[in-house]
């Protein structure tokens, strides 16, 4: 089988480029994979199935969705909310009508009116203010013959959106842990948080919780790694909570190896977010691979992590109190940290093993490439037999046959 693989690839600096760099060699051990050059609009000749890696970043993915819209295929949906991508492919190309149509297609007349408001600059851009309320996934899904997602959460969203085709849940693969020397930024317990520093990563809540923990445990250090979003007043918040200087270590964007070293030197990892766009966190996967206990928000994919490997914090009115209690538990109980770390490593071994993920990919691609003729042949033979026995289309008997076929995935 030959697969045309559309994805950003290194040296592009995106999580999905990293993902594909990890996945493609494992796929090539199983099937033929042609990585399509950026900007090409169609799969190479001889392709059995085209695979499109789609995320929310228009710079990285607009050309891929352009190709998808010309040649339908299997979509790997890394984010369910793709409003930013759609805006980039419409408004960003001076195609206001395209944006109006996309909003109307998914959200009806109200969506079109809101889109007018955005284009007329009467309301803030929805892709910045409320993207989770207007995911615009159908812009992509309408052209997909099947969809691969990383979580049951997104599978349910895709199904709920009315997508009629097959949806496969394939976990995010884990990177092999490089041979690194852990870099400890402080003595005592280090709580690490890796990723963009902003509101949706719940950094204000984390800072409050860390300040409370530090009030009784001065040997606890908070390590924040990642660029700060424009407009997010991190320094002022640190000062106000007494976390500036001692007690906090700050790193901006860092190279991959340093990231592994710093993460490896942490005792606890925190990765919160709300709202979720349906994404999976490569940072959490790395942390679990390092057998670290993690604290996550109880949303989306993160909710599906087993409780013995991750403590979950709901983004509700008790968020700070719950987060504080979780951190206090992990800071004070190294036996709990050890047990959670073991469970994390086992989870990665069991569910996120690269070769298992590649096998699941191949299963999905084989079904996508040849499933339709097989289903058609089965339906033809069954319906011929039914007709031969006098079972009329639309009869109760025919309905039962259809129901039984659907139960076992042969319903076409």
């Amino acid at each position: 089988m030959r697969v045309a693989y559309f994805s950003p690839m290194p040296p592009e600096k995106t999580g999905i480029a990293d993902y594909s760099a990890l996945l493609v060699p494992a796929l090539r051990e199983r099937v033929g994979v042609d990585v399509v050059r950026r900007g090409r609009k169609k799969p190479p000749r001889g392709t059995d199935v085209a695979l499109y890696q789609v995320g929310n970043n228009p710079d990285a993915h607009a050309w891929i969705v352009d190709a998808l819209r010309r040649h339908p295929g299997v979509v790997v949906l890394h984010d369910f909310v793709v409003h930013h991508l759609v805006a980039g492919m419409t408004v960003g190309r001076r195609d206001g009508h395209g944006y109006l149509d996309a909003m109307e297609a998914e959200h009806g007349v109200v969506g079109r009116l809101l889109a007018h408001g955005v284009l007329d600059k009467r309301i803030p851009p929805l892709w910045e203010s409320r993207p989770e309320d207007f995911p615009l996934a159908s812009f992509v899904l309408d052209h997909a013959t099947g969809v691969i997602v990383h979580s049951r959460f997104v599978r349910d969203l895709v199904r709920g959106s009315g997508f009629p085709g097959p949806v496969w849940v394939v976990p995010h693969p884990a990177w092999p842990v490089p041979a690194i020397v852990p870099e400890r930024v402080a003595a005592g317990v280090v709580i690490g948080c890796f990723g963009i520093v902003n509101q949706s990563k719940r950094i204000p809540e984390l800072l409050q919780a860390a300040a409370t923990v530090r009030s009784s445990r001065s040997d606890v250090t908070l390590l924040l790694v990642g660029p700060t979003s424009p407009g997010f007043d991190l320094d002022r918040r640190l000062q106000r909570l007494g976390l500036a200087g001692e007690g906090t270590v700050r790193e901006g964007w860092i190279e991959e190896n340093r990231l592994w070293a710093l993460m490896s030197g942490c005792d606890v990892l925190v990765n919160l977010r709300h709202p979720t766009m349906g994404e999976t966190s490569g940072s959490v996967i790395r942390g679990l691979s390092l057998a670290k206990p993690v604290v996550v928000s109880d949303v989306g994919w993160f909710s599906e992590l087993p409780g013995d490997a991750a403590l979950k914090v709901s983004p509700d009115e008790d968020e700070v109190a719950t987060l504080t209690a979780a951190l206090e538990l992990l800071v004070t109980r190294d036996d709990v940290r050890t047990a959670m770390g073991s469970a994390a490593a086992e989870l990665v071994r069991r569910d996120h093993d690269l070769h298992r993920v590649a096998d699941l990919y191949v299963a999905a691609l084989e079904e996508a490439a040849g499933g339709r003729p097989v289903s058609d042949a089965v339906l033809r033979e069954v319906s011929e037999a039914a007709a031969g026995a006098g079972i009329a289309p639309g009869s109760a008997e025919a309905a039962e046959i259809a129901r039984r076929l659907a139960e076992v995935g042969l319903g076409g």
Partner: protein
Amino acid sequence: MRIAVLRPQVPFARGGVEIFTDTLVEELRARGHEAALVSVPFKWYPGERVLTQAFLWRMLDLEEADGEPIDLVVGTKFPSYLARHPEKRVWLVHQFRQAYELDGTELGQFGGAPAERALRRKVQELDRVALGEATRLFAISTNVAARLEASIGLRAEVLPHPPQALDFRCESYGDFVLSVNRLDRAKRIELLLEAAALDSALEVVIAGDGPDRERLERLAHDRGLDGRARFAGRVSEDELADLYSRCLAVYYAPVDEDYGMVPLEAFLSEKPVLTTTDAGGPLEVVADRRTGLVVSPDASELARAAGWLRAHRDEAASLGRAGKELASEVTWDRAIARLLG
């Protein structure tokens, strides 16, 4: 309880699954249950026929029969476990192996074309749904359970069953090595014939019939084994028990076999088993130098092992007796108690 035992039936074929399911029905009846065998013909080719034939099982209504409820059904082999029932137990003999570990081998069925690949995936999807519905899932061996978990992620409890009830006895440790098996390529009878070609003192008796018989007979002839390799064909239960009772050892080395009743039958006749390191299920009971000899799948190794047994008949008897002790632990009382528990 009213219990239906489910078995797909390849018309005119009779092998281990048929013996197992017939015996299960008898043993259930012997314990006061009302048991019946439910059988549907099975043909797995060409193309998507494997799916449409499997689907027949899905259309069966086994919740009751003749106005009386059926309390429990026991699925055994693909595709019988596609049947629906609120109390569906599966005692898995094996999945449709061509869609799993045999894929890509000479024993596989599905080619590389997209439709054939997809067909194989559909078989796996059927298993995932149908076996996932089971209220309890058993496998006849660790090998079968491990394959199941590795392929579709379902865990089964290992529940071996006893072999058919024959007049098992040990009369002597004669000069011949006995093979009891269906004659098809996967059973690897040719390895025994090649071993006999290397050791002029090795005599073999091959019980069983099948599509590979002509090729094997030709091979025996080409190797000059006439007189030392006897093809006994399908034998009666009495004849089989007699062969077991008089042989030196029993050869049983299919490729990655599910489990295999033959080693247990050999043990109940106090005979050691000759098998290979890649035989799969048989290795769960045949331990090298404890209940038999385990060698690499190589004719000269096998010939050497058979020669050693011939030269050490006391040791052969000792291995056979150790096997009997082990086989005596596998009883229908225990198996049925767990199956219905």
